[in-house]
């Protein structure tokens, strides 16, 4: 399992992460980010890619 943390003080809800790891990140009906706090190890590469594309550099994997 990996643990995911998004700094919601930084996040501007751009939703770029959604395209890289759609099973972890999504924009809800109010266009606000929602994400799962944990994910399977198989999602690591996708979450790493989401970290790369987040304009606010708000996403971290906390081991």
């Amino acid at each position: 399992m990996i643990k995911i943390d998004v700094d919601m003080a930084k996040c501007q809800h751009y939703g770029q992460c959604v395209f890289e790891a759609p099973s972890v990140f999504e924009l809800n009906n109010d266009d606000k980010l929602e994400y799962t706090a944990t994910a399977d190890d198989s999602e690591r590469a996708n979450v790493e890619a989401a970290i790369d594309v987040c304009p606010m550099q708000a996403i971290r994997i906390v081991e």
Partner: protein
Amino acid sequence: MSHPVLIVGASMGGLRTAEALRRFGYVGPITVIGDEPYAPYNRPPLSKEVLAETVSHEAVAFEQRESTADVNWVLGTRVESADLEHNIVTDANGDVHPYSALVIATGLRPRRLNVANGELRGRHAVRTLDDAIALRADLKPGARVVIVGAGFIGCEVAATARTLGCDVTVVAPGISPMQRSLGTELAAEMQRRHEAKGVVFRLKTAVTDLVGESAVEGVVLDDGTTVPCDVLVEAIGSHENTEWLEGNDLNLSAGVLVNNDLRAMRQNGVPWNNVFVVGDVARFPNPAYDDDARQIEHWNIPTETAKRVAQVFTEQAQGEFRPIPSFWTDQYDNHLLAYGVLALADDVKLIDGDITGDCVFGYYRSGKMVGVCGIGMRSVVQSYRANFV
């Protein structure tokens, strides 16, 4: 031991290339040489939230990944020249660095005003962390700030300076801010939003000289008027950092011309097998649009080009390189997000929302959508993204 993959430029493009090489399985040595004293950091906050708070390396540094722990970082070191025939570069200390493959990631630097009375304190540009630290120190409440240039960086600095309580005037030759990218209607609306916050625009106007003895006191415009000024911010575009490559068989007319695999091209169109270019300095063809090679100075391009270089280098590249350019900008509480190449459009239409509130514009060339940009309304903007894949 074999020579390293040598990356010149220790910013986002250089960092992402090192990471991607490891991710795609290259285990050999990697050296990154950069002239700034800092480990790679993120530039967009330098004109936005970080400029409004305290500017420090810690606030903007990219997180270092374990995969690149063994990368040899040579910071604070300028590369002076390259000899592509002999696979070496030479730094400012005279040290010679041989390479097996070279990755050019030297980006851009700001263009500066060319004026007779130019040797004055109080002149700023915003590209590096040190630039932002120096500018931040001068942005005191009540300071008279003149920003030359009304592109994205100029407008972001205008918003930040205004938020900090400065008097802000924007001087630019265009008819409205960011107009070349956003199109007339959205640009005019962004101008209204800046004006509502108290920013003064002097458009269709150029700077002819500066006033002041030792520090800037005023900016002289081509209509003969002078705008009083304590802090001058020059945001008038950029130069490519390619001087160190001169004398080699390359096309350096604008950035470094590359093919779709990001291999640098010789004048005769034959690519160098072991010379790659990433980030802002790469002029690459994107078949998603047409055959014209372009520089795309957006934040997602260093990451995309780095990935492609690593795939090509490790012989895992498949299909064409067709990245979707994407940018965002934050000005006050206006958060703009765009996909595509807006500047290619011959027609721009409001496609959702209300121009005075949240809204989405479509950008079309010969009837085909080439870009989308919205203020807010993220899901709508994103629903068009698939058009550009």
